[in-house]
């Protein structure tokens, strides 16, 4: 294995007004290795990468690629020089097909004028075959699942024949199976001599895939070590700068009497059929399964934003209809959606507006006027109760970190006094410290007698937080396991039952 240095970033500094985003950070990536970059949100990982790609101009420092100093003006120039990136947030032309997305901006042409569709198809097919990706290049992006879109993005990055490939949280929307697939791809690229920078929050993944690990904290370089010399507690310690006792808070909730009963839930337009289960007050029920197994659909059908074909929902023995979101909210349901940016936040609106939107009725005076004071009070309650870090209530929500955005949305729902909380991937894209706080909030809610249904793709999270786990497969309920006694293997077996 070649161990020569491929990319060297030395003494990179970047300052934004009031914040030192990068403070003399150095990073060295060797040919044919996977170099993991770790750190909490805001540690400076993304900023460092943006400096590499010329999206930000660095204040000081040097970047050497293959021994030559480089300074890319934009990501296009970087890609042309063999430095590509798979972004965490997909920016794809969803209305266009797969191959259009891959060759966007550099279409192969016939005679410099006409786009050579045939060549495009063949090239795409060749890359897909090489990477064992099973997607039809003619499919429209919006019709394929998010996880496959992610694979397309990866294929696009590979198609540049890059020397350096950066993966930014590539697995956040992938299922376990697809993660395996991604790792096969990464290993293959490594064997071809590509230098890979891998950014992720998931420790287990990092420890498995990487050769070297660099940890950053608060814009500073903390340590770089071979992965073989590190273990999870050490990394966490390096990342947070303190001992993080446990990954999960102690489970103190005590399930009470049966509260929510779902019988034979079948969806009109999705594959969901015949789902029946019960949940008790103060219980945290997990929903496990592969992507597309019907977990999200279950929540959406319960909440009434997807059309039900049949099935009944009972709350405390009484049938509730939940025909739309308003009715469900009135009945005491709340839904935290999977894609926070797309269906959770109102990016352009401020924290207060985001917080009170579901409980505006409470603030009505004389049936027409909204009471500014009481809205401010509720928002403050939410900020305090959720420990949201925000400069003010007037701050636009999109300027907060993912974890804090999630807290605002959770606060929004708590203000509707829900009895049943449907949480879809509540900790997706949130850093370790904030995850712990979200877990604590969930357990606190269960302690108050709320019924919680939680979908997650991260199995340790389900095992650590839930009382019971329902495993879904192919739109059906494949089984139910006790979170205390089950294993990941048992869940995976059930998840594959109807596939």
């Amino acid at each position, binding site marked *: 294995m070649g161990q020569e240095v491929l990319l060297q970033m030395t003494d990179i500094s970047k300052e934004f*007004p009031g914040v030192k985003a990068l403070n003399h950070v150095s990073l060295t990536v060797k040919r044919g290795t996977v170099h993991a970059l770790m750190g909490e949100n805001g540690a400076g990982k993304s900023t460092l990468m943006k400096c590499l790609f010329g999206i930000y101009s660095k204040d000081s420092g040097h970047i050497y690629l293959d021994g030559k100093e480089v300074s890319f003006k934009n990501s296009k120039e970087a890609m042309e020089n063999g430095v590509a990136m798979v972004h965490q947030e997909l920016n794809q032309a969803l209305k266009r097909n797969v191959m259009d997305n891959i060759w966007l901006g550099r279409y192969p042409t016939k005679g410099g004028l006409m786009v050579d569709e045939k060549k495009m198809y063949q090239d795409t097919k060749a890359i897909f075959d090489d990477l064992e990706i099973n997607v039809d290049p003619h499919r429209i992006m919006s019709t394929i699942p998010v996880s496959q879109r992610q694979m397309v993005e990866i294929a696009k990055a590979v198609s540049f024949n890059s020397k350096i490939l950066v993966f930014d949280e590539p697995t956040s929307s992938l299922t376990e199976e697809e993660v395996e697939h991604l790792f096969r791809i990464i290993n293959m690229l490594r064997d071809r001599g590509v230098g890979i920078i891998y950014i992720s929050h998931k420790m287990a993944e990092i420890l498995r895939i990487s050769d070297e690990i660099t940890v950053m904290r608060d814009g500073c370089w903390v340590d770089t070590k071979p992965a073989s010399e590190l273990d999870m507690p050490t990394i966490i310690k390096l990342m947070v700068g303190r001992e993080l006792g446990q990954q999960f808070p102690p489970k103190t909730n005590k399930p009470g009497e049966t509260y929510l009963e779902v019988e034979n839930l079948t969806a009109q337009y999705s594959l969901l059929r015949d789902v029946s289960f019960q949940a008790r007050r103060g219980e945290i029920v997990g929903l496990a399964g592969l992507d597309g197994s019907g977990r999200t659909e279950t929540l959406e059908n319960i909440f009434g*934003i997807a059309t039900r074909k049949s099935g009944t929902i009972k709350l405390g023995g009484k049938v509730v209809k939940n025909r739309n*979101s308003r009715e469900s*909210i009135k009945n005491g349901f709340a839904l935290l*959606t999977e894609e926070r940016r797309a269906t959770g936040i*109102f990016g352009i*609106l401020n924290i207060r507006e985001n917080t*009170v939107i579901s409980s505006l009725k409470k603030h*009505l005076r004389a049936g027409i006027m909204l009471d500014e004071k009481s809205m401010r009070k509720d928002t403050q309650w939410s900020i305090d109760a959720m420990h949201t870090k925000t400069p003010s209530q007037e701050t636009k929500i999109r300027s907060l970190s993912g974890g804090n955005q999630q807290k605002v949305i959770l606060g929004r729902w708590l203000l509707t006094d829900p009895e049943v909380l449907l949480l879809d991937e509540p900790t997706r894209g949130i850093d370790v410290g904030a995850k712990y706080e979200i877990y604590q909030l969930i357990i606190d809610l269960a302690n108050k007698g709320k019924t919680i249904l939680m979908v997650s793709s991260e199995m340790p999270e389900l095992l650590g937080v839930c009382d019971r786990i329902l495993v879904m497969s192919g739109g059906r309920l494949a089984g139910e396991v006790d979170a205390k006694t089950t294993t990941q293997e048992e869940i995976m077996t059930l998840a594959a039952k109807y596939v």
Partner: protein
Amino acid sequence: MTNPIKNMQQKMADFQALDARDKKRAIGEGLINNAIYILLVIFVIYTYSRNPMFITTSSIVNIISLAAASMPIALGIGGCIVLTGTDLSAGRVVGLTAAISAAMLQAMDWGNRIFPNLPEMPIGVVILTVIIVGGIVGLVNGFFVAKFSLHPFIVTLATQLIVYGAILMFFMANGNNGQPLSGLSEKFKNFVTGTWFSIPTSSGKSVAVPWYVLYAIIMIIVMWFIWNKTTFGKNMFAVGSNMEAANVSGVNVFKTTVMVHTLAGCMYGITGFIESARIASNTANTGLNYECDAIAACVIGGVSFVGGTGKISGIVTGVLLLRIIFVALNFLSISGNMQYIIKGLIILIACSIDMRKYLVRK
């Protein structure tokens, strides 16, 4: 409420803290973001230097009156833009409601009444009628936009044509044969264009401020209240910002969308009522292209097509700005043809400056 003085001091302090290069940039940004206002000031000074009559009491009252006349339509269309939509039917709805107002309020002794047997109508009934007619068109717009997720551009393009057809048919009714509707009753004219109060000028004459300025002010207050203080207003901004999230959060997206368009329709009705008396002789082309000025005013005032943003104060500023420019062009004796080109350029520049604020800077 945040203290505006403290706010300003904070901003100054922030500015002082920047280094020379960033300071330069901050000034540049400030200039670009306020370019439209800066250009306006220069333009006003220029116009004044060429024609001092531009800044006199009567000229200013004239500008305010003209702005007041086009205020309700802009206030209505603003809501559609907050929802990332638009409304092309606005001008024609103004035309239709203007025709209806005129027909219902022709003087009893006018020889050429379109409906000779119509008894004398109370003004309240007429206002209610035009609000309902405008509201119905808005309701139709809103229904198709919300129910079938059609783009408002398409829906209102269609209703624009339909309403125009209705106007033409209306003017053919009862053997009227397309003649303009005039001979409005004194009562109607006084109600709208009569003198609210007079401002004495140095030359001894006094300048009358018409009643419809007051109506525009009332509309501004009502709309400000609706946008800022009601559940409907908050929901409107939520839907405009992120429709999917609004639905999940329990906002009735359908109802909100329909209501925004209906409210807009009602506003066009009021504009039609005022225009009818103001113009005095209504033709089938009354209200033509009014929506363009209204949309331009909204955009200049910061109601952005990205959705979810906008303020009533912005719309008011936008309408005033546009009016000042139009009147100034007249004072400079610039030909009507040229004025269209200038209008177009203003809209282009204003939109560019507006969108620039929402570009993600890297």
